[in-house]
């Protein structure tokens, strides 16, 4: 079936709500208001307040309540209006939800999904444009995924809901209207910890996730025209990370460029780059390159904002330098 990223997310939630009575949605303006990005459109009317709960603006409290409920067996899906607001709930996420299973010696499980738009949209300014996935991927006890395709959005959200651990599920706002196919199978799920190869190639490996996968794919097509064959790897799941697939590609192409929207310095791309050179040192014909967001708070003016977010040209320039 052809659908959009947004609708695929919604369908996954509908199916999981219907499958398991413990699954429910909780978040700000997700019910009556239909969600600010309309991901939850129609669900309040369909499932009523019991399963689709509007909350006050209280991110720490919302995540904490969902976590406590999860300890008693419920399976909450928390929508963050934007992932930038999850910063307020970080103590609940990383110092409570992520640690309960360990601190209780395995007695309690926390099957909670925290999802929402992450990354820059369109002039939302400095406080609303964060890419949080790199921070989360640093935290043992969490799983962190960032699907780039409609099928992945669908299959990985279903996996997330069925996972017994806290899952951070980040959706780049630029992807919501993306079109794609999903299978007609309510039991369709996609495992975490598997990269996908989006474009095969032999001269350089471009590693991206979320919307940057598409930027990498565009760059790969432009490189094709230059006669350079680029392989595009979609990381999909940052934690667990399928490093082996990346390594296998780099051992073939001998060059790697990691692309991410988050601030370049200290972003998760640094981890990927560090691991590639650790494991593929003898195969590398050039240093592992990185393209990341500019190291500045996101400016409002559109011309400045566009400078901050990596685009095809930035990737091409970096790739050409590695190939030179």
């Amino acid at each position, binding site marked *: 079936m052809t659908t959009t990223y947004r609708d695929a997310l919604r369908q996954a939630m509908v199916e999981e709500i219907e499958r398991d009575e413990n699954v429910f949605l909780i978040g700000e303006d997700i019910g009556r208001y239909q969600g*600010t990005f309309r991901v939850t459109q129609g669900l309040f009317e369909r499932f009523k307040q019991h399963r689709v709960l509007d909350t*006050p*603006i209280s991110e720490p409290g919302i995540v904490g309540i969902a976590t406590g409920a999860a300890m008693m067996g419920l399976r909450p899906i928390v929508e963050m209006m934007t992932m930038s607001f999850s910063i307020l709930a970080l103590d609940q996420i990383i110092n409570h939800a992520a640690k309960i299973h360990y601190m209780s010696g395995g007695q309690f499980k926390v099957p909670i999904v925290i999802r929402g738009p992450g990354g820059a949209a369109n002039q939302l*300014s400095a406080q609303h444009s964060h890419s949080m996935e790199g921070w989360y991927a640093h935290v043992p006890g969490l799983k962190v995924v960032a699907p780039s395709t409609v099928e992945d959005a669908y299959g990985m959200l279903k996996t997330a809901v069925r996972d017994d651990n806290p899952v951070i599920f980040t959706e780049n706002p630029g992807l919501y209207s993306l079109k794609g196919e999903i299978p007609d199978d309510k039991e369709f799920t996609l495992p975490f910890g598997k990269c996908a190869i989006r474009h095969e190639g032999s001269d350089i490996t471009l590693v991206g996730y979320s919307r940057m996968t598409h930027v990498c794919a565009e760059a790969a097509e432009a490189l094709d025209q230059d006669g350079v064959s680029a392989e595009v790897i979609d990381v999909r799941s940052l934690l667990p990370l399928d490093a082996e697939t990346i390594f296998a590609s780099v051992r073939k192409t001998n060059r790697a460029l990691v692309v991410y929207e988050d601030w370049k310095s200290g972003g998760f791309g640094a981890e990927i780059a560090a691991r590639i050179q650790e494991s593929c040192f003898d195969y590398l014909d050039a240093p592992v390159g990185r393209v990341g967001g500019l190291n500045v708070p996101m400016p*409002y*003016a559109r011309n*400045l904002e566009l400078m901050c977010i990596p685009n095809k040209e930035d990737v091409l320039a970096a790739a050409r330098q590695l190939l030179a």
Partner: protein
Amino acid sequence: MVRMRAFEDQSVRAFRSGLAGGYLHVYTGMEATAIGWLSSRQPDDPIITAYRDHAHALYLGIDPVVCMAEIMGRAKGTSKGKGGSMHLYSADHHFYGGWGIVGGHTALGAGLGFAIKYKGGNQVAHCFLGDGAANAGVFFEVMNMASLWDLPVIFIIENNEFAMGTRLEFHAADPEMHKRAEGFNMHHERIDGMDVIDVRRDAQRIISNVRETSRPALIEVMNYRYAGHGAADNDQTLYRSQQEVELAWKRDPVHRLANLLTEQYGVNKQILEKIQREAEEEMEGVYDEAAASPKPEPDEVYSDVYTDMQPERGH
């Protein structure tokens, strides 16, 4: 009030025409609150509010062209185009912003009160927030500290009955939000915010009390927002009826003041119409001037991250 409203009309126009982006929230319907309140401040009192900040900025005397330029992301804007509609600031006007994280700035507001007390000044800090913001945990933390330490700060809840698409009764266990100060041994009351004269009278009383005692206060001002939550909020029927909005228009603070002026003070209607017309013309001019002003230079992206250095450059 008519200038504010005319300004907001132009800011919405900027959004519609694509000259402004992101989130843009207008103050239409709530004017009596900001004006009534701020007209009672002392000129060097520090002021802080959330993202619905155009009216406060204008009233404090920031050049409307500079505000509009900020909203359009231009170099001559209050923040050189880096802040946008939600993040207007002016140190010269003691305007401390302009903030996007709901509730977050209430802590800064308490900090302004803290600095006044620390320095032994006689100012009062005025911190505006929404009804939705009054659910944020940090707000309670700072109410406690403000009271514990006798900080000269007033928290003014602009209760427009909605937090985005969530009606007061769905987000507040007790819709009388001023009562939240009860447990902190802090003065609190609810006042009407649709009549600018009333607001001014109440504000004068409350502010001078805080200034004298250095005891903080929580004031809930009841008003209503006529516009959508933000400029992109295009289906208000999701959370309120057309009827309800029409009914609220009957309480329009601009009309109320106009009626008062014509009926009680015998002001000629034509004078009011002239004021209205001039305001509209002024703000059209503001729009044009801001729209014609230049965008920030690319290298601006790296400046102002720090006071004394630049961040690591490049992708």
